[in-house]
């Protein structure tokens, strides 16, 4: 029977194969310094389109116009926009930086001096499907790789026993585009995000079949290894065959390392409290964020966590007051806890935390107490790894309708994320469809103002 030590000694990070080495030769991972301040990224994705003007971008002008027709053109998804609606929430300035945060984020507000707000984000699509693709892949069309896949393609993973890119989605449901959203697109499959759920099994197929005993499966895997060794002797010099044997060993180890990763019982009560895990509304998201911190500790490169999915999300065409309050409550304490936890463990400087959705919302109302999609101006924020806290970039107009000052595109956001990882997004390319594809395709500029 094969021992655990045997597996460990056979470990290797080797990926790739002769079959596509020609293709790789045309693609470029050159010129990657990989000495960025950030080693990992945690992207907190608020699916549905959180309302910037109700969370981080207060607009006093809305008070004046509340209930009146919008004085100008507003680009909405649905026809017949309703009158202007003021924010039902109160805003206050916080921290030394005096950043405005609505009353919905009391805990997060304590961290504004670590945060750089980007108040002038824009995206190219106003439907969820296309906008989700746009902000995650740079393209409104299906089939392009996720920014996390690019990061993993550029930098590889630091932990052989865990995937380099992990995505977690809301307990209520996955985003409507499905898990392909964090797939590898046209990049080789190993760079795609692996879906992890705080459940059993955490990763698809990571649970031993009921039919097999632990001893039985160990013997079985050992048998495969011996068969593979014999096969490789008959077909010598083929690197790919060895890689597959190693991948099998890594897989066998992952059956242990993944449950270990997700076992938050090891965490003390203070940590659980910090993330709000004992508070039912915060439990799931808090657990995910705590796991994200454990992933960062274990060298996972890119982590994306979706709050909200197809079923319940930040897409408040109606009932904005109740729903935004509830969704904010679910996330406020866990996010504040994550920032604090990372900081006290000395991980915040090497972990880039990104917050945002696929678009913002309109100043005009819908169904009396909702807002429509707004791709022309919304807020995202970044904190940690190489980000200058206590800053704010850009501005929307007096209604929060359009980015008017220093508009930022999804490509700029992507360039900034890769930049903090030490990658020049334009230098990291992959030949597909007759082009040297890059994440930003020549359109992204790092947002210099947010860099520390």
């Amino acid at each position, binding site marked *: 029977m094969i021992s655990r030590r045997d597996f460990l000694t056979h470990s290797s990070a080797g*990926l790739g*194969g*002769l*079959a596509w080495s*020609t*293709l790789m030769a045309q693609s470029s991972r050159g010129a990657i310094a990989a000495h960025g301040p950030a080693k990992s990224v945690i992207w907190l994705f608020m699916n549905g389109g959180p309302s910037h003007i109700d969370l981080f971008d207060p607009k006093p002008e809305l008070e004046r116009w509340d209930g009146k027709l919008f004085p100008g053109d507003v680009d909405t998804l*649905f*026809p*017949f926009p309703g009158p202007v609606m003021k924010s039902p929430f109160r805003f206050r300035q916080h921290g030394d930086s005096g950043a405005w945060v609505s009353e919905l984020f009391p805990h997060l507000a304590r961290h504004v001096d670590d945060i750089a707000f980007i108040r002038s984000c824009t995206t190219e699509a106003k*439907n969820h*499907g296309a906008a989700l693709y746009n902000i995650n892949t740079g393209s409104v*069309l*299906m*089939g392009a790789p996720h920014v996390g896949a690019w990061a993993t393609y550029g930098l590889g993973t630091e932990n052989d026993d865990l*995937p380099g890119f992990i995505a977690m989605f809301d307990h209520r*449901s*996955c985003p*409507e*585009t*499905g898990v*392909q959203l964090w*797939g590898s697109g046209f990049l*080789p499959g*190993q760079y795609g995000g*692996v879906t992890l759920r705080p459940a059993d099994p955490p*990763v*698809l*197929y*990571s649970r*031993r*079949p009921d*039919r*097999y005993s632990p001893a*039985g499966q160990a013997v*079985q*895997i050992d048998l*495969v290894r011996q*068969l*593979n060794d*014999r096969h490789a002797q008959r077909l*010598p*010099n*083929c690197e*790919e*065959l060895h890689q*597959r044997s190693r*991948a*099998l060993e*890594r*897989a066998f180890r*992952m*059956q242990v390392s993944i449950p270990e990763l997700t076992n938050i019982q090891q965490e003390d009560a203070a940590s659980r409290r910090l993330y709000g895990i004992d508070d039912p509304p915060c439990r799931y998201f808090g657990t995910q964020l705590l796991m994200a911190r454990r992933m960062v500790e274990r060298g996972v490169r890119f982590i994306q966590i979706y709050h909200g*999915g*197809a*079923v319940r999300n930040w897409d408040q065409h*109606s009932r904005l007051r109740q729903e935004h309050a509830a969704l904010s409550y679910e996330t406020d304490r866990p996010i504040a806890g994550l920032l604090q936890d990372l900081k006290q463990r000395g991980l915040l400087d090497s972990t880039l935390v990104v917050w945002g959705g696929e678009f913002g919302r309109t100043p005009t109302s819908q*169904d009396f107490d909702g807002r429509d999609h707004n791709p022309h101006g919304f807020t995202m924020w970044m904190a940690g790894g190489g980000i200058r806290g206590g800053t704010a970039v850009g501005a929307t107009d007096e209604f929060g309708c359009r980015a008017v000052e220093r508009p930022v595109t999804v490509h700029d956001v992507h360039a900034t994320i890769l930049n903090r990882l030490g990658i020049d997004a334009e230098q990291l390319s992959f*030949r597909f*469809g*007759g082009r040297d594809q890059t994440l930003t395709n020549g359109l992204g500029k790092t947002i210099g103002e947010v860099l520390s």
Partner: protein
Amino acid sequence: MRFLLFLTAAFTCLGTWGALHRYTTAEIHRLVRVDGEGNVWDARERTCVDTVSAFFRNRDQGELLGGQSEWLVSPAADDDSPRQAAPSSGREPLFPSDEHLRRHMQRILDAAAAELRDVLQDQPQPASTSRERRHPVSEEAHWAFLPLRQVSIPNEPFAWHPIDRFIRQRLKDTGLAPNPPAPVVTRMRRLSYDLRGLPPNAETIEAWQHRLEEGPEAPQAWAELVDNYLQDPAFGEHWARLWLDLARYADSDGYELDEFRPHAYPYRDFVIWAFNHDLPYDRFVQWQIAGDELLPDFAPAVAATGFLAAAPHNTFMPQPVERYDELHDQIDTIGQALLGLSIGCARCHDHFYDPISIEDYYGLVAVFESATRTTRFLRAEQSAPDYAALAQPLIDAEEALHELQVARIRADKIARLDFTPQEKELLLQPVDPHNLRQQELLARCGGCLRADAADFEPDLRPLPEHEDQWAELTPRIANLKATLPMAPPQVLSIQGSEARPTTLQRGGKLENGDTLLGPQFLPILLPADAHGSGGWRRWLPPVWQSAASHPRTAMAYWITDVESGAGALVARVIVNRLWQQYFGTGFVSDSNDFGFRSAVPSHPDLLEWLAGELVRSGWSLKHLHRLIVTSETYQQSSRLQPEHLVQDPCNQWFSRYPIKRLSAEMYRDSVLWVTGNLNSEMYGPSIFPPIPLEAIYTDDYELDAKWPTDVEEGPAVWRRSIYIALRRSNTVPLLTLLDAPDGGKCRGRRIPTTTPVQMLALMNSPFLVDQAARMAEQLSETSLDLEVQIQTMYRRMFQRRASDEELSLLYGTIVQRRQQEDVYDSEVLAEICHALMISNEFLYID
């Protein structure tokens, strides 16, 4: 203000279906309905998805929500009817069962095969135009854009096969000698996998092995075996996959709603059929662009236009720009799949590297500007009547009855409201978006105009003023149903033949659209006198010349025109693809890019010669397959010598046969094949094998599962993987992990990956565990002798006997397991079976 309705409906209403199955054809027919107030209701009457203006805007584009047909029938009262209701009981002629459709499809395609020869003759052809060569051939012209070059077969002493002569001539330069032939069984396994995607069965090996051993008869026997495999229907089922990857084929729309496409499958069946019947490749291409125009009564030609309709497509509040996103996808796919050119790069600006301008791009957009999605009934024979016309009276009657039912439901709902009579009266009036009072009532009344599935109770009675009409309609519907034949399969296809100009959109932005451009083909592949507007018309058959319509037909003929169109390039591109499938590497390494940036082909002469052979053979793909697999280059051993790693590490000189991992589909199919469980039924609606519950996601609004949660393993789903539904937002994880594409973009090659997560799937997939257990059970039933069991396993999986050493290894495993814990031998056998299935010998061909 109608969006108020939408909001109440879409965001608060929950599904009544509970756990969703898949959409059946019947359900899909109910998918879209316009109610009396101009609201469009989705599926089962639950959700009002759009306003009427958007609906008609879509319809004008030929794109109803979900790409479904325009007519809709039958109230949703029978929601709980079994999915595969027997056609005879409760006869629903418009909603045949999946099995009925599958058989029907088989009949249609069998009949089409019999008619094929005549049909090829009948297809309208362009008047023969002048045969001047394309654009002036200059020194600097890019090789791929030139006419086919005449090449002579090199004179190589020890090679008789033309391919080997070309290959050896180049191989000499590397100092490498070709590998010796692979052992016979290795070659048979290779051939069977390469041609059919399945391992050879033991009987074939026994019957052929000795004939294929060295000897004067061996080449003849090999050729016979090749022909046998080329005749096997499994050939088309295997090779169609290559094309479906290119066509980014899927069974759903993608994007936000990702509606299922129940009528996409006839396109997949067309591709299988075309490859099996060796439909000439030029026709294969022509039909995919304009089959509906060229042969409107011939089912495969119409189904072929599913190529264009396969594009991902947003159906939720479609934005005007998304129409151009879709056209972009179609043009980009045509460019890459057929021409090996990244034409899509010129959407925003002139191509950076290739001589393709933004004007050229929009000239192609104009070809497809009027072409939109539609769902058509396929004709069983060319002479069969149009089923849509036959069904129209029934559809009309059911629609009429439906309106009466909705009127009743609404009246009841409004009557129950705690509103004043005046308010109720206002609600009964036609919806007026400008009547704020009415809008407010609508917002307050809790979807009182909505008719949900559950509202269509069987004992629904008409309103007093509708009694006569109702009494007349009910028996009429029953009567029409009884006499209407069962509906044939429908296909999601393309319609629209108008030559409509488009706007040139600089930066790819719709709002920048200014100059109007008519259809035009790529100038780099046009003769000088066909440049400019109207030049495209020279490829029109005479009958359409005067009307100046049918730009797609003209394009179909231009693209396959070897003399003065893109035909030479099209031939080179497909030749390269086939070669790449066999050898892992093409002559041109990026099979989707023959533009300026592609490297010089490794074997330019062989590429030219094979492309010429394709054209000379009447575009017979089977001829190419035969040529390739009868070469010694193909039959040589895969042995990687140390000098290979130095001189030919990427095998671009084809110094050996590559060691290749099975594709996702080949792998799953082979597992089913070796366990004896593969169901070889062909064609028909896509299947939904069970996948782990945690890999099934819920869709928006409906809260329904995107994949059936209650299917079981069994022959119905043990069919070849090409028949598995590809739902863009919920793919089959085992296939995805083994690098099957997601239907997002045109894929010219799959990059085989080796990841731990993939190996986890192989170790723990319930499908594999189950198949291994079934195989072990069979083996235990047929023999008690452990050695016999193991040898049977080896023969089926590896087409060889286990060596003594292997036998003792396996015996040792069994003994170890017996000592470890209390297990049945059959359980250990299942574990071993599974181990063999995930071992490299099973996963790789060499």
